[in-house]
């Protein structure tokens, strides 16, 4: 009897503690909301009050200026090229970073943590931030956009692939070590065959992200179709802007689909 009473006490205590914790969490969340809402000047009246002007803008976009589509072919190609070149260069740069960020390949602890830190740091920065900085640094145009996508896709690919790499079967690595193979041979004969399909799949995934990102690079002057969107809106040519949106949508959906087909082939 006394035994069960002893068990009951802490559980009741835990229950009360749990409730207090829950209450504290709710209060904390409420404070965060009030603080944020005040900070951004959130007001339902303003949101609802401005909605008509938003719908007016949408209304002004209809019908899209179909004729403008011809002039979008080159910018679209440039968008596509920026994403391709950025993905390829980013992938090449990712290869050494992946190997450095996998603890089963890189057994040098300080180097491993330094590489992971570098990778995570590069990953926090959105491709648009890279683009804005690079446009100011190396000039307007697709070159800055390509470099932006390169840095970002290097970091994302390194993150995804190195995590998969750390989960591969270490047996073959040990076998190569036991044969007297060196590090490079271990990478080529035990690591690469296991990780290549995953790496290729993540590369396609990064390419999909890059395609989406490349369509807006032009908003900061880094080339591609985003430039057309920016100028159309600045000059109040809303039917042109609608055409840009439509064209972007079609291209992104098509490339996504293609990339998905390729990825299923790989795995």
């Amino acid at each position, binding site marked *: 009897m006394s035994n069960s009473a002893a068990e009951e006490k802490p559980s009741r205590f835990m229950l009360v503690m749990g409730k207090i914790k829950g209450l504290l969490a709710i209060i904390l969340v409420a404070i965060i909301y009030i603080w944020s809402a005040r900070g951004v000047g959130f007001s339902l009246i303003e949101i609802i009050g401005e909605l008509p002007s938003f719908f007016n803008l949408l209304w002004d976009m209809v019908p899209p200026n179909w004729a403008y589509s011809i002039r979008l072919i080159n910018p679209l190609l440039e968008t596509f090229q920026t994403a391709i070149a950025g993905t390829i260069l980013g992938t090449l740069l990712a290869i050494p970073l992946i190997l450095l960020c996998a603890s089963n390949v890189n057994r040098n602890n300080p180097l491993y943590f330094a590489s992971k830190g570098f990778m995570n740091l590069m990953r926090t920065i959105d491709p648009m931030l890279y683009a804005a900085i690079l446009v100011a640094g190396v000039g307007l145009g697709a070159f800055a956009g390509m470099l932006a996508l390169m840095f970002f896709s290097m970091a994302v690919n390194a993150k995804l692939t190195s995590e998969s790499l750390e989960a591969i*079967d270490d*047996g*073959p690595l*040990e*076998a*190569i*070590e*036991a*044969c*007297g*193979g*060196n590090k*490079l*041979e271990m990478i*080529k*004969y*035990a690591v690469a*065959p*296991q990780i290549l*399909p995953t790496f290729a799949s993540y590369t396609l995934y990064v390419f999909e992200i890059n395609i989406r990102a490349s369509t807006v690079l032009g908003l900061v002057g880094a080339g591609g179709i985003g430039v057309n969107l920016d100028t159309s809106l600045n000059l109040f040519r809303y039917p042109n802007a609608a055409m840009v949106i439509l064209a972007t949508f079609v291209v992104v959906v098509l490339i996504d689909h293609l990339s998905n087909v390729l990825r299923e082939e790989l795995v």
Partner: protein
Amino acid sequence: MEIIECEGLGVTYPGGVEALKNVDLTIEDGDFVIVVGLSGAGKSTLLRTINRLVEPTTGTIKVDGRVINNLDKKELKEYRSEVGMIFQNFNLVNRSSVLRNVLAGRLREVPTWRTLLGLFPEEDVEEALSCLERVGIKEKADSRADELSGGQQQRVGIARALAQEPKILLADEPVASLDPPTSHAVMQDLKRINEEDGITTLVNLHFIDLAQEYGEKIIGLREGELVYQGPASKVTEAKFEEIYGRSITADDQLTAGGEADV
């Protein structure tokens, strides 16, 4: 002539586990030695210490008259290429071809720039193929490793070790993932290679009937200590019980389940 001599060999893992304690051991050139003991007795550590996949904490290991404790990186790779290793889980690259897996055994013989480009000289490819032929699966050379049965995969593992042209073969529980008939076939392959080439062979096993059937000599480990070393013929059931520290059960025998006569 002794090929392997261990003196006062001890291994303590970073977590504090003492896997081997003060092991003194000699193995004659050309011996076929079975290492028995419960799992956790240090069998695997002993084998891995011999090719320095595990670093000894105390004591010395002499192979072919040379102390191998303090080899530098290059010497270590050279030394490891003289010691073939066969693993319980085969440790093959599943997605690579059988031939490519076996060619891993030739890595040390071929310059790195060639191995990285996949340009193995003809004679090394020939050597790899002949190793596959010796274990009877030459026709599987261009299959993907994971298309093979467990027994065939372990033969690829043996062929890879043979491709190193080793002086010593270490087999760590080579039949633990295999069914009884295949286990016997793989043990027979190992024994045949030992007899034909005179390669000193150490095999970890936990099945006492396999140990008695194939072993010339037996080493018994119990909780990291060497408790028996001698000819297999002199190991009685009582001796096994001493090594295992408990009475022998059906689980300790491969054929106890009634699948005898292989």
